[in-house]
């Protein structure tokens, strides 16, 4: 997990959302115990259908949807969290996820808001969330093109464990 100045802010804001574990039909009794077998971590990436790693300094494509809005793709791989239940996407025990895009002066220009999202456990054991649309609050690509921004993610699971990660990237128009 990379460490950036934004991480504590994300952590604090997410804890405000998180509160205590809520009632749920699905989490196994030992869900938190099992999750705690690994150290909590997050590895932020991008990609609409597959995880693509992001490094600080990478370019991140801004896509324009058919309705005229703009977005980037948020993707993350995590460890040490309860993944939730993919058969029940709205189950309150699913992890709460927030992706944000911030300019260098801290202005939030993209935000998913708090989303309940079950994570996918791959057959190799990796746990990931792929292809989350992070809407940008812009009317034109020119407002953010070629700017350095921070893409950040925060995930809090049913057990109250929070992981955060962020990358400094340059936004570019999609090709």
């Amino acid at each position: 997990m990379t460490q950036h100045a934004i991480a504590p802010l994300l952590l604090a804001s997410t804890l405000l959302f998180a509160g205590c574990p809520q009632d749920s039909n699905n989490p196994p009794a030992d869900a938190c115990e099992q999750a705690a077998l690994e150290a909590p971590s997050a590895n932020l990436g991008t990609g609409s259908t597959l995880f693509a790693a992001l490094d600080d300094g990478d370019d991140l494509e801004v896509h324009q949807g058919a309705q005229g809005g703009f977005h980037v793709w948020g993707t993350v791989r995590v460890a040490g969290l309860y993944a939730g239940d993919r058969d029940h996407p709205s189950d309150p025990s699913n992890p709460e996820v927030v992706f944000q895009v911030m300019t260098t002066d801290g202005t939030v220009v993209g935000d998913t808001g708090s989303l309940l999202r079950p994570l996918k456990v791959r057959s190799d054991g990796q746990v990931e969330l792929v292809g989350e649309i992070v809407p940008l609050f812009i009317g034109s690509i020119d407002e953010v093109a070629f700017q350095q921004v921070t893409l950040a993610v925060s995930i809090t699971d049913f057990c109250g464990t929070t992981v955060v990660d962020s990358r400094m990237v340059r936004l570019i128009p999609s090709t």
Partner: protein
Amino acid sequence: MHIIALLLAVIALALVSGCPGPEQPADPRSSCRRCHQPLDEAGDAGGLLESHAFTVIACVDCHGGDGTAQTKVAAHVVVPVGIEDPTQVRGMSSVELDTVPLEYVRWVNPSDYRVSGQTCGKTECHEARNQTAPSSIMTTMAGHFNKPRYYVGRQTTRDPEQGVRDQHDDSFDGAASAVEDMTTLRAPDLNADSSLADVVDKYLEDGCPRCHVWNFGPNDTVGDFRSSGCAGCHMLYANDGLSRSADPNANVDDPPHPINHRLTVAIPDSQCEHCHYRGNRIGTMYRGVREAARIAELPNIHALDESLHGRPSGFFVDDEDSTNSVDETPPDVHQQAGMGCVDCHSGVDVHGDGNLYGAHDNQVGVECIDCHGTEDAVVAPDPGGVFRTSRGEMMRNVRVGDAGVPVMVSRLDGVQHPLTQIADVDLGTPEYDATHGRDASGFSHLDSMECYACHTAWTQSCPGCHVTVDLRSNGRSLIDGTETPGRTGGTSNWVVTDYFALGMGVDGMLTPMAPQEKMFITMVVPCDPATETCTDGVDTPAPGRRIFDQVVRHTTDGRLGFGFAPVVPHTTSSTSVPCDRCHLRDDESNRNIVNETLGIGSGRFQIPDGEGTMYDLTQVVDDAGVATVGLGHQGTGVVPPDVAARVLVPRVPNSGLTLRDVGPWTAP
């Protein structure tokens, strides 16, 4: 040396070995099952599902490969040079797919139309379907091209001159609105000297052909995953594109993979929605979901918490006001009853009749009266006991039920749905008599109006669209996969559910019309601030200037290139559009509402072009009642002046209907 030898031995063993597990008896069909449908410890086969109902088909009969081989390498079709894995093929454009060796296309998807003649479409199987489906409107996508090209004057007619592929109809018989030849849409490379028609071709090529079954689509978005050819509909994909197969060798981690290896005619609506959330949005409207754009001011909407079809959480709305007990955008009554798209749409409706058409009106034949009869007659089977559509198509799932009345047996779950016969219904109210009866002069609404002209609960409409093609970035052709300058973007100006207008359909019946493609087009090219006046991105490393600035299109016959075309909203309701949507009240307080319905114009949606000329997007006729805009489908029209004059005669009670104030247009 020992280590190297050991490694080589392990590799060699892996190459020649079969799959782990109990000894598999010789399989009469293929050795494929050793890996994909292995026996468990108890000797029971598990894993890959049988692909086809009613019959057992060997894997190699569909996929090719070698069903006698004992190793993976020998059994599988060789991956062609330049292709990393099947997933790559499942994201190719149709022209790119044409370059893939057919043996490998068949390996990845035996039902792709390039090879389906050897598989699904073999003589003893679905030959008839295979002769028509590759030229149906869901395959050619011509309906999405001919209208915009006509609106901009690239075509002088609305003939489907171009599609996603060159096609020729050997048996062309001059069918109305069909063509003998169709060529592939290819936009010229854009530059500062390009014409508006060139720009339109570019956005069509880059923006539209996601949804046709000559390819798999980009397969890059949750909610859109699918296959090509027959499997494009008949093999089901989950919205997340992940396999739920028990095949121990199936990739269950990454999209795009089908839910299971199983072909079906019980196609759920979600499968249709992989494509039909676009265009007229009938897939989402059928289940009672609208889009959220530009209604942020509505305080109590309930939105779906899922990213779908490239839209973020909150984009799709299932209730405009969650504080009341009314669903402002209810699902279609048939959906509420448990019926799916495939219960009505089968046969020629979806597979075509072999003609190269340019609009759904020509191919889709099922009518409401085919199941519900008319005011004068109930539906009945033909002498052979078969229920048929108005066009003579068999309705295989309509029959006389146990109670002796016609029923539709749902393809989804086998439930029998009694078919209400209009002739048997008489509410006995003055309103019912006025709408379904026949007056002293012999007039009946039912003679000249589609049922859904009134029995539509709501329609999503997007009046006005600002399209920008920006040559500072590249766009990727969805037809051949190449990248050329010109990234296409668009902005809907309003998304509303209460726009309602009537027009004339291809069969001479009044029908709801959609305000399609009322576009304002901009093209931006790179700009050198040292020598030129730049208008876009002036302070960025890539400034631009506008060649076209919010320009409207015009047809060659002098009409505004604003679309106006029939739409079947698929939000059927047992109740009706209020009478004062079409007819004046005593006090004529609904004049604007009626003007919007008849295309005279309400002034509700007004947008200026780049030069400041204002356009009322609800106006489609002039003072004489003649169409001023392009009509997208051949054989359709505005409400004829004599009909409009007759509509304005009766006076009806005030239903309380009001139109939503959408506010003035603001520049995106």
